[in-house]
């Protein structure tokens, strides 16, 4: 049995856990805790170690999806999680421009850990106050050749589309 892994990263509350939950065939093994910081009390709980989802391809191949903790104080986990990844997805909350700078920094950090293919998913595009994709590309300072994809982490087709785009990028770069 061979296993490969992809990493889903991004700032706090960008939708990483939901993204993995939407396509995982197992209940996501999520290590969440109540949010303690007042500043981060946008949601009740957050990932402190990692999320873990699985998609069985066939008898010989399994894809694991790992979600990184979003809070900066757990960034020591990032390098460990990025080891041996096939590619990674940077989730960005399209409705929270104040997190764009952090998303950019996370992207740079992961690129430094492992120069594997990646895509950027502009999550929550179904929300009324979501930024336009073109505006986000400028704000995130993404090169034109980096895929910035509209996404809704709770929508299965949308998540599939992001994963397929990443796999397409991997195939192109092989």
């Amino acid at each position, binding site marked *: 049995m*061979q296993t*490969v*892994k992809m990493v889903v990263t991004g700032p706090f509350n960008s939708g990483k856990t939901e993204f993995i939950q939407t*396509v995982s065939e197992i209940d996501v093994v999520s290590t969440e805790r109540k949010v303690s910081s007042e500043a981060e009390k946008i949601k009740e709980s957050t990932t402190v170690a990692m999320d873990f989802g699985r*998609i*069985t*391809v*066939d008898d010989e*191949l399994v*894809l694991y999806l790992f979600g990184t903790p979003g809070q900066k104080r757990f960034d020591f986990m990032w390098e460990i999680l990025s*080891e*041996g*990844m*096939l*590619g990674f997805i940077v989730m960005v909350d399209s409705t929270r421009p104040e997190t764009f*700078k*952090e998303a*950019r*920094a996370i992207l*740079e*950090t992961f*690129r*430094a850990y*492992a*120069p*594997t*293919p990646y895509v950027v998913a502009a999550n929550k595009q179904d929300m009324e106050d979501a930024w336009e994709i073109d505006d986000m590309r400028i704000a995130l*300072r993404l*090169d034109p050749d980096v895929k910035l994809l509209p996404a809704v982490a709770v929508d*299965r087709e949308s998540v*599939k589309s992001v*994963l*397929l785009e990443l*796999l*397409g990028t*991997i*195939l192109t*770069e*092989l």
Partner: protein
Amino acid sequence: MALKGNLRDFTITQLLNLVNLAQKTGSLIIEGPSETATITFREGKLAYAQVNTEDGGLGAILHKSNVISTAQYGTLKARAASMNDKELGLLLINSGYVSQEDILASLQTHFVDIIQRLFSWVEGIFHFDNDILVPGDKIPVKLDLENIIIEGSRRLREWEQLKDELPNLELALKFTDRPGVNLKNINLSVEEWKVVSFINPKNTIGAIAKANKMSELDIRRIVYGLLQAGLVELIRPEGVEQTLPGIDKAMPGKNKEEQKNLVNRLIGRIRSL
């Protein structure tokens, strides 16, 4: 107990604050990754500062402050090499080349510059030695630390912001394709020109900083400005492995065809979800 430790645990701001509040006399010696700074205090006030990799002589300081010309500096080095700073200062004042105020202002600026640079040091060890005072042949100043601490804290915030914006100095720079924008028509400072002259896909930002003897704060500030102005963009340096080692690591022992086959199986499975 000896005042010594690591900059990761105790910042420059905290150290200066301590010296100020405790009205300390002596020298704070900070050993950074590539240079050592010695900052000397008298009753909690800044008296003298020196970095081991730089010429801290009065002639060099006056030249750096543009108080004397390059030609005058050359003459001083040739004819007054054996004089110490106090003797040289008296000679220059008596000869009418500079005033006492010029000398003190240049020294103060130079010492404060050294301390401000220290604020960007995050690695290093320090210790405070009560017995190391201003060398007898050097001209001391007497500067309150409060303003230096406030300015340093402001720089520290700027440093943290710049690090967030530009975390990786191992990337290289290239000029953006912006027809119609002529670099010659843009007003760049001398320091910015120095950086621009090294822009090349083979040079990392860190290497450019090293070539120009710039601190990480200075290079980040300049590159950030160039990025924001849309003049340059970040690229992976040339000569770095172009194939993606991460993929090979993710699929060890597989040749390209087997890797493609594996990715196609993943694509097929995701489509069927």
